[in-house]
């Protein structure tokens, strides 16, 4: 049966080429300008969470205005738009993308594959510092005259550079420059992740023995590398339109009775470029989440993942399909009906591989030995939330349903469920899961439970009612509803309710942050493998893993990543680096 195994002598090299490690000599090169992927991962994660807190506060301010219009006089329409814009952009790009790929990618890829480090450590270090620069440029826009741009996170021209849009003076410059920097930095990191997965796997780690986390991060990185150029081009062209007065995107238009010098540009072109990046971006965030959640569920249900091959194929298929659905974000911009039909169809087809994944997660749970640990709670929370958000996606993917629902709160509820709450739940679950490996200590269980239940129930209390508001016709992006015949007073009460819950959920995140710091010093000692997991990162000789990860010898892989509850095995998990008993494989 196993014709793949060969005799030891046939293998040319005993070890994969050992990466030449840069050995730090000082505190600065060890912890600040470090080339160790694990340190870079922590730098990425801390920066992403810090800027994420800014975005969280911005969402509070927006909710205060929506829930209690008129009470907070410092939130005028201009600042409200700035809050929206910065909240969206930070959460999507600077938090989710950076945390999943820069944070988890850097930490987990070398460890899970049995490598010593990334293939190009220096480039990896540059990647972080350029990311930090991008974040600082973005933050700087809060302090420029006119403040940050308020054009909405999609930055649609022509309004993004017309006077009257907040941040038109300098905020939009800084936003575009920051995005360009982010893309440059990400590309450096992304090349690293891809080449490391292709080349630095340890002996025995075939592609089909990789944990799904790695499959998710790998595929997402490929998507990002190919999709970000579209945003890069869009940003450069918009920058030129604003700075030099070119007309890539600017049509002839009249402003305040005066004809502007622009003319001949196409705003639709920007939308194509933006969403050609923008839709793969959804999967750049979702695929790592899919992968991580598969591993969390398998580990904490003590059961092998159901349909591993299908899971891999589905990840690859979703990645491919994600490039041909972008125009479903542009139904209301107007398009040939055949195109609308085409994009609606491809959008619905994506539901097939996605549904396969959801079924497989549920079937993995079925009759498993489910441990309701905090990571498991978050993983289950993800499945439910992603299903909810995905189902409303089926509505919005159809042109006739999308057109009336477009620009209502329904859309806000949909993408927050599917792209906001769902991946964030995975991030939390993953942090609770891997924190013991990173620090050697467990996060506090009680605080974790509080954090989970408040966040999970709170997120539903926030976003479920928003669907109803949207169906009623309550528009998004409005600073104040004012008098609208079709909006009953109960909508205002619902808005106030949502705001109160949003504040509570926000404060629950402070519990989480406190837990992160407190457990660093007071947490229970974790040992090397507290979850009794099979994957390689839990088999390191010391915890936290040192520079170079593995001591003298690289680990060797003999089996796939999901040997839980194997009949006849001594324990209910068999690590990937444990060989089968002699003769068992033939």
């Amino acid at each position, binding site marked *: *049966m*196993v014709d*793949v*195994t*060969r005799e*030891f002598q046939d293998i040319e090299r005993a070890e*994969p080429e050992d990466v030449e490690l840069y050995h730090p000599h000082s505190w600065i090169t060890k912890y600040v300008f470090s080339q160790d992927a694990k340190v870079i991962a922590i730098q990425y994660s801390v920066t992403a969470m810090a800027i994420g807190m800014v975005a969280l506060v911005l969402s509070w301010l927006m909710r205060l205005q929506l829930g209690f219009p008129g009470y907070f006089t410092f939130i005028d329409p201009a600042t409200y738009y700035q809050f929206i814009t910065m909240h969206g952009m930070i959460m999507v790009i600077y938090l989710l993308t950076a945390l999943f790929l820069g944070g988890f990618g850097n930490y987990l890829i070398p460890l899970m594959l049995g490598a010593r480090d990334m*293939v*190009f450590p220096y480039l990896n270090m540059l990647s972080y510092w350029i990311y930090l620069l991008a974040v600082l440029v973005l933050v700087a826009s809060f302090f420029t005259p006119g403040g940050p741009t308020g054009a909405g996170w999609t930055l649609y021209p022509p309004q993004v550079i017309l006077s009257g849009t907040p941040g038109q003076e300098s905020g939009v410059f800084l936003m575009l420059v920051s995005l360009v920097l982010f893309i440059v930095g990400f*590309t450096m990191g*992304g*090349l690293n992740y*891809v*080449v490391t997965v*292709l*080349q*630095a*796997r340890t*002996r*025995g780690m*075939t*592609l*089909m*023995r990789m944990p799904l986390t790695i499959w998710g991060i790998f595929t997402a990185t*490929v998507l990002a*590398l*190919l999709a970000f*150029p*579209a945003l890069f*081009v869009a940003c*450069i*062209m918009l920058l*030129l339109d604003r700075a*030099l007065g*070119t*007309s*890539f995107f600017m049509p002839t238009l009249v402003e305040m009775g005066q004809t502007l*010098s622009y003319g*001949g540009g*196409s705003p639709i*072109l920007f939308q*194509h*470029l933006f969403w*050609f990046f923008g839709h793969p971006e959804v999967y750049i965030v979702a695929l790592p989440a899919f992968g991580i959640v598969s591993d969390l569920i398998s580990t904490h249900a003590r059961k*092998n993942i159901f349909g591993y*091959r299908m899971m891999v194929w589905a990840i690859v298929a979703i990645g491919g399909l994600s490039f*041909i659905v972008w125009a479903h974000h542009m139904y209301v911009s107007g398009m040939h009906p055949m195109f609308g039909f085409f994009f609606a169809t491809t959008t619905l087809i994506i539901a097939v591989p996605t549904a396969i994944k959801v079924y497989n997660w549920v079937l993995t749970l079925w009759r498993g030995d489910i441990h309701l640990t905090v990571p498991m709670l978050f993983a289950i929370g993800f499945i439910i939330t992603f299903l909810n958000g995905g189902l409303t996606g089926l509505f919005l993917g159809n042109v006739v349903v999308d057109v009336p629902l477009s620009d209502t709160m329904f859309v806000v509820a949909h993408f927050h469920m599917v792209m906001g709450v769902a991946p964030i739940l995975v991030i939390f679950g993953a942090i609770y899961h891997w924190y013991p490996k990173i620090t050697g200590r467990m996060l506090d269980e009680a605080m974790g439970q509080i954090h989970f239940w408040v966040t999970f129930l709170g997120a539903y209390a926030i976003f479920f009612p928003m669907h109803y508001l949207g169906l009623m016709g309550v528009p998004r992006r409005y600073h104040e509803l004012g008098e609208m015949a079709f909006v009953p007073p109960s909508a205002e009460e619902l808005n106030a309710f949502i705001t109160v819950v949003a504040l509570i959920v926000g404060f629950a995140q402070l519990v989480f942050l406190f837990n992160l710091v407190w457990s660093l010093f007071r947490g229970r000692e974790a040992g090397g493998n507290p979850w009794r997991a099979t994957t390689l990162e839990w088999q390191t000789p010391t915890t936290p893993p040192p520079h170079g990860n593995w001591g003298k010898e690289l680990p*060797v892989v*003999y*089996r*796939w990543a*999901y*040997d839980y509850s194997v009949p006849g095995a001594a324990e209910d998990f*068999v690590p990937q680096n444990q*060989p*089968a*008993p002699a*003769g*068992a*494989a033939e």
Partner: protein
Amino acid sequence: MTVIIAFLTVLGAVAVWWLSRQRLAAKPWLEASPAGSFPDREAVAWPAAKLGLCMFLAVAGSLFAVLISAYSLRMRAADWSSLPGTGLLWINTWLLVLSSLALQWAVVAVQRRDTTRAAAGLGVGGVSALLFLGGQLLVWRQLNAGGFYAESHPASAFFYLITAIHGLHLAGGMLALGRVGARVSMADGDAENVRLSVELCALYWHFLLVVWLLVCGILVLGPWAEWLYAICFGT
């Protein structure tokens, strides 16, 4: 967006071809191997730097494909008018061809362990690439003198943008070429050490040449391409 989709389709075909050779239909849960026995190593046999460069070329390729897509979308608008051709572009094109050929010559030399000739090849390649960049600046000045400013005309805006991005890629390559050239001239006959670097430089140069031929073809011959498209698809 046809161009970028076509480009990604080609990349996707390569990916599918590669994946199809990776035993994706394996049943890993049945295949635990005993101690000392391993499946074939499936890592790509190329050096990491070469694989990294190829990945980067895929990224840069999609950047240019997006630019060309944007250009052709804009070209289909009713008010489109193309730039006048300039003879200088032909000279620049030949300079870039020369540069690429010189680097290929350097690769052949370094494969024959002849570092002196390799250094000469890199030198010629570098100088002709510099001349190309200078020539591009002259084209810009000619256009400017002819009243085609970036802000006055959509075709000239695209021309400046695309040539600038291509030029920046070449200029970035010049930095690497300079370093490799210095190493080759100091290699003193030890060709093995520098062989990979020279090959990678040449690969990057060939890529930029192909991009330039496509970009230049579309920028200059764009109206004809439109005419051809109209004949084929009747729009």
